[in-house]
């Protein structure tokens, strides 16, 4: 059966289809990896191939479940890595041009970013506090993805 918005050809052509809450899927963005729902945001994170210098890369995909804008704060998200010896190391986003900042995601819209992190040594897994991504402060809610190297 066609999606409701697909029934309106003009909408598909000029306006696109809205993100359906909980679907973790849209025409333009693939929600891959670990997924979570935090208030208005459906969030997925995946480990992309590390950069040539060994920096881990995390792909973020997010969809707005609500009918009002929702904030997405990738600059303020707490990200940590787990080393082979079991130690936890904080990861800092690489942002040479100072682009990272909180932005509002429009209602029923989706987005994606890939961010690399500076770390001393190698990490086997990366964990992100998705509550901080949605600025839902309180207890951290960790979403983790395993290592992936080129």
């Amino acid at each position, binding site marked *: 059966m066609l999606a409701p*918005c697909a029934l*309106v050809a*003009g*909408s*598909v*052509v*000029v*306006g*696109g*289809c*809205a993100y359906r809450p909980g679907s973790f899927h*849209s*025409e*333009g*963005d*693939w929600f891959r990896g670990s997924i979570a729902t935090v208030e208005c945001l459906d969030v997925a994170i*995946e480990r*992309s*191939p590390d*950069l040539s210098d060994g920096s881990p*890369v995390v*792909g973020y995909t997010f969809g707005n479940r609500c*009918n*009002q*804008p929702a904030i*997405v704060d990738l600059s303020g998200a707490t990200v940590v890595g787990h080393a082979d010896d079991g130690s936890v190391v904080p990861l800092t*986003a*690489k*942002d*040479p*041009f100072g*682009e*990272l*900042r909180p*932005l*509002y*995601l*429009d*209602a*029923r*819209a*989706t*987005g*994606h*970013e*890939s*961010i*690399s992190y500076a770390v001393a040594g190698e990490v086997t897994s990366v964990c992100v506090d998705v509550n901080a991504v949605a600025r839902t402060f309180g207890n951290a809610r960790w979403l983790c993805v395993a290592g992936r190297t080129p």
Partner: protein
Amino acid sequence: MTRRRRLARLARLAPLPIALVVAGGTARAEPSCYEDAVVGSGNCRFGIWGEALEAPYMSVTIGAVMRVLPRPSSSGPRATTTRATTDTESGGIGGGSAPTVEDRSWAYVERVTVAPWRAGYFGVEMELGVSDVSLSDPGARRVIAGGAALAGLRVGSTWLTLTGEIAAGGRVMEISGSPRYDGSGLVELRARADIWLGPWVTIGGMVGRNLLQENEWTAGIALGMHTWSFGGTR
């Protein structure tokens, strides 16, 4: 980035570049930061998904309007392509009033609006006549082209937006007789209702009345594309 992904993203973001182009803006061409383009790599730009809400809300609307133009009383017999009605308000049955002769003029309309704040907006519109009114009848008129500036107030939800607006401008009309063309002013009060087909697309209707011309009114339908979902009126 796959071709399918690029096309899907382009389709969803279509209203924004349309509005930007119309408004005279320019958009940078860098793609969003996907797995093959990491933030800071110089191959992409962070935050494309959030840029629509950083700019003022804009909408582009295309549609058709029908204008009912009362013909001047000295214009002679009514034409076969126009409609005659009895003016019951001034004369009624047996009142002896003359029939009101009207010409119906159709036009294609395009409008662009910008909302500096949530409830109010400004904009411009242009119309091009597509009327088939026969101009063989003395005094018959049709709109050739027109333009107006407009301002309005709106309230809405995720399924319906109601608007009241005023438009002021001018138009060029073709007339059966001499002179062949004439210009006239337009100050129109309008009421609009738009239904949201999706977060960024509406279809709606409007009715209006020209304050400068007695018994002249208009009605139309339009398809709208919006840079903010649901017009930001939630």
